């Protein structure tokens, strides 16, 4: 009889190389968003943006075991998902700077970044917009006989959209290979789940669709990874969808114009003390996946990658105003 492996799920399930890459992506998300914020302040980026700082575990642990053929749909708060799925931050910055070298050739910006090659079907400016699209993506996999799973990220606020209900119902009726990952950060813009949502946990709503629903600490990398792993396995086995709810928190305001009149300083600080990156890093060190120096090196690499990304983005050409109607229709 072998001794049970009591290490956290992620540690016992993934190779050290994968885990280090995951830590790297978490740092990269954090640094990328800080870099974006800084660029925004300097006037290099226009419009608005929604930062996911504080939610990095949810994005990276969800995507850790996915292949490029597995797909995600993302949200307005999608930078983390994008990087977690493997996007290049240079092309992301280029998009923010409105360059032809950006993922959307400067047409989309932060709210529409997609990276089809790594399976990211795109952020979405419409809350809940990605929910049925994810189900359609899962339908494609099933009809085309492919093993690919689709992960649908959405927020606690999105769960009150009719699209949520319609999408989960169809996914269940048709037993499609999709995992609904709710990033419950407690607020849809200024409105707390308590004031907007008639259940305590979004995962309770899974019962309405006869699918498993699980709520996990979304700042605990291993907890997220395990829940998503099980859901993905279920989906790949043809057993249908699952709803995973990651409890997490965004450190920053909803968007650049948030004056933060609806949250207390204490609440924010309490959550900052549960920084998912610090926790994951400590876990990796505790289990010998790396040491402090190696972790610092990873963190430093993330900074370098972020900085190189900004340089790449700055250097890229801007689209020509004459091309304003390009890409509306397929070119024939």
């Amino acid at each position, binding site marked *: 009889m072998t001794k049970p492996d009591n290490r956290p799920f992620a540690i016992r399930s993934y190779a050290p190389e994968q885990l280090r890459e995951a830590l790297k992506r978490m740092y990269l998300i954090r640094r990328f968003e800080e870099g974006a914020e800084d660029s925004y302040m300097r006037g290099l980026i226009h419009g608005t943006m929604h930062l996911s700082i504080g939610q990095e575990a949810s994005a990276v642990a969800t995507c850790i075991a996915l292949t490029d053929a597995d*797909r995600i*749909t993302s949200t307005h708060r999608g930078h983390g998902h994008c990087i977690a799925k493997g996007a290049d931050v240079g092309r992301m910055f280029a998009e923010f700077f409105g360059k032809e070298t*950006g*993922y*959307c*050739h*400067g*047409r*989309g910006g932060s709210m*529409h970044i*997609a990276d*089809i090659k790594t399976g990211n*079907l*795109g952020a*979405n*400016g*419409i809350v809940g*917009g990605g*929910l*049925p*699209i*994810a*189900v*359609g*993506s*899962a*339908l*494609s*996999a099933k*009809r*085309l006989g492919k093993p690919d799973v689709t992960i649908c990220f959405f927020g606690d606020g999105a769960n009150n959209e*009719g*699209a949520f*209900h*319609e*999408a989960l*119902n*169809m996914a269940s*009726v*048709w037993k499609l290979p999709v995992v609904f990952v709710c990033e419950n950060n407690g607020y849809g813009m200024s409105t707390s789940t308590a004031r907007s949502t008639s259940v305590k946990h979004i995962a309770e709503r899974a019962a309405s669709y006869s699918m498993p629903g699980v709520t996990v600490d979304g700042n605990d990398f291993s907890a997220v990874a395990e829940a998503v792993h099980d859901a993905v396995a279920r989906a790949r086995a043809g057993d249908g969808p699952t709803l995973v709810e990651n409890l997490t928190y965004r450190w920053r305001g909803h968007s650049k114009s948030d004056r933060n009149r609806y949250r207390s300083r204490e609440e924010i600080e309490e959550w900052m003390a549960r920084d998912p990156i610090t926790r994951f890093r400590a876990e990796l060190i505790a289990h010998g996946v790396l040491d402090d120096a190696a972790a610092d090196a990873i963190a430093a690499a993330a900074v370098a990658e972020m900085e190189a990304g900004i340089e790449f983005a700055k250097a890229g050409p801007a689209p020509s105003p004459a091309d304003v*109607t*390009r*890409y*509306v*229709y*397929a*070119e024939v």
Partner: protein
Amino acid sequence: MNAMTQDQGLRTLSYAEAIREAMAIAMEADPTVILMGEDIGVYGGAFQVTLDLVDRFGPDRVMDTPISELGGAGVAVGAALTGLKPIFEFQFSDFAMLAMEQIVNQAAKLRYMLGGEASVPVVFRLPSGSGTGAAAQHSQSIEAWFGHVPGLKVLQPSTPEDAKGMLLAALADSDPVMIFEHKLLYKMKGHVPEGSYLTPIGKALVRRTGTDVTIVAGSIMLHRALEAAETLAGDGISAEVIDLRSIRPIDHETILASVRRTGRLMVVYEGVKAFGVGAEISAMVAESDAFDFLDAPILRLGAADAPVPYNPDLERASVPQVETILAAARRLSRREI
């Protein structure tokens, strides 16, 4: 209904059958084509357009959706983005209002927002129009809205032949296409060629040549216009009748060429007059060089400024009929600057 639709020894099908044939041909040829919609399986669709297709292709390819228009359309969009070619039927075009977000914010814009890195080859079929006594929420003609949406193509077949050819053309297109089918035309018979052929998207067609006045009309209004033109001929008024066919893009050239010749233009359509298809066509002509050829104001005949009423006489009065077209055409032909 008129000469054009009469059997001349050629194979005839109804408009509904022609659409069904197009779907069957496409499904035989391409395993990625699927049908989605409410009650399109064993029920055969509210207008029986998909009748028996589920027996031929199975429920995995002829999918009855729950009553979830937003979600259903969104599933079709997501499927189109990832390798399938869905034909999504809205049971009535009115219900597309529940799915505007997926049609307009997602399907129409995805290619652009993604800088050309993705495409959404979805086809939406929308039974449309009044005349069935189904009242305000089941009788609308909302196609003009989609003319206002870059990224979409918007078609309106008026014959069985075009109904088939346009659907096949829509499936061959890599962008989202909306096809407005008129409920009253489903039973109309006409010649339909065998096999696969594509009716070009964005091309209007002169269905009757004339010299005195140009009448642009699509869908069922084409048939009313042709009937009126026949009577007008007896009055000595020679009307050219153009089948609009495509609302987005609009075939400017065919219309302008005709107006340059006749100097008089009338647009007939079933949607509400204000902000309807006629507004765009009129404005397009009025800003073109053909303006200089106009000998009279441009007339629009559209629906009354009201929801579609239930009472059959009111319903009839609310949209252009042969006699309204006739009267307007006579007025227009007499008008001098």
